[in-house]
């Protein structure tokens, strides 16, 4: 429940930031401001993706490239937060590379979108709730697709893992013979 709450909260913030970035790009605002917004966006996107690219039903350590965030695996959230500053360098290097890749990728997408919309004389206004909702829906779709992709890769990588384990036939009997054996020992 908490996880879902935080994922949704993250996506809302990401959608806000995406709109803000495109507004600023369309208005030809300060480059520094755009860069700062993109870095904040990329950081949040990377952190957020650690939640929705792993299959929480089946725990961790299943699909390395996907479960710890796009696009590079790292273990940021699996290290206790109170000790995160003691995390080995490999954690941080992976994290920063992931953030850089996401910043380049999403920065490019936002730039192309802003230019494309401007050519069509579509202006994203600061109070544009319609575009905010559209962006939010897109992020939710990305999240859902990622969940299915990570699940599909897991099924492909570990075939047969969904099959039930054969249980002893006498399990359904409450007077299970092993308990009976224990009782014998007790007596």
């Amino acid at each position: 429940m908490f996880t879902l709450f935080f994922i949704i909260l993250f996506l809302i913030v990401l959608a806000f930031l995406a709109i803000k970035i495109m507004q600023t790009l369309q208005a030809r605002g300060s480059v520094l401001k755009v860069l700062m917004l993109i870095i904040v966006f990329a950081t949040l996107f990377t952190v957020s993706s650690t939640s929705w690219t792993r299959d929480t039903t089946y725990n961790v350590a299943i699909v390395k490239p996907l479960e710890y965030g796009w696009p590079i695996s790292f273990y940021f959230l699996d290290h206790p937060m109170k000790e995160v500053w003691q995390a080995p360098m490999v954690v941080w290097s992976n994290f920063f590379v992931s953030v850089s890749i996401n910043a380049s990728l999403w920065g490019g997408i936002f730039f192309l979108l802003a230019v494309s919309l401007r050519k069509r004389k579509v202006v994203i206004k600061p109070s544009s709730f319609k575009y905010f909702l559209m962006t939010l829906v897109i992020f939710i779709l990305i999240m859902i697709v990622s969940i299915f992709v990570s699940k599909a890769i897991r099924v492909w990588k570990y075939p047969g893992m969904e099959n039930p384990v054969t249980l002893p036939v006498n399990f359904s009997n409450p007077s299970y013979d092993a308990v009976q054996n224990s009782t014998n020992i007790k007596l």
Partner: protein
Amino acid sequence: MSNFMRVMFVLCATFVLGMQNASASSVSCTNATDTQFVPSWGRVEVGTDQYSRYIIQYMYWDKIQRMQWLGTNGDSTFEPDAWFYNYGDQGGLAYGLAPAGYWYSDLPAPYVDTQFEDQFTVGLNQYLELNETAVTVGSGWAVLINPAKVYITVTRMTSGRGSSGWVKLSAQRGRQVPATCMTTWCSFGCDTNNNYQTIPFADHFTIPGCQQYNWLWDITVRRTC
């Protein structure tokens, strides 16, 4: 307040709340003795079939007094933890790493436990590894557990690097935070009188194999099945 400021405010609030949530690794509970929540009898089978390695656990409380704490706390949770020995520097390679794929339990509100917040150390190839890997199916609503009934948990798991190894079992009581939430993310272990090792590593119980225990059910004893 501009939109930008509003976004920043939500951002900061998210981080603060997230860090508070992530750092809550245990909760305070009312006092309990081991004979008020640890099963009277238990059995563990670790093995492999054509698809993967798996672990089956059975547990049994012989009378209601043996689960008094679980039964009198409406928000109680229970985890029959299985830990695989993975101290690489001492020659230990885990037989199982993490739950994966099929799982089942007839415990009330069952969930596959997460390894979130378990302590990682830097292992081979600079990957973070756990010295003890937990593979657990817990109950998010332990107040509904009945005495005189054999409960079962079973889960497949990803293979560790060991073809055999050691396993330990521990019985952990906990609480739902917040109450009424019964998922793995809402089950927190109690900060006192917790984690009684029903089968300790010191037993050197080698898996694959089967072992069972009696916990103060007249006597405390462990033996192979």
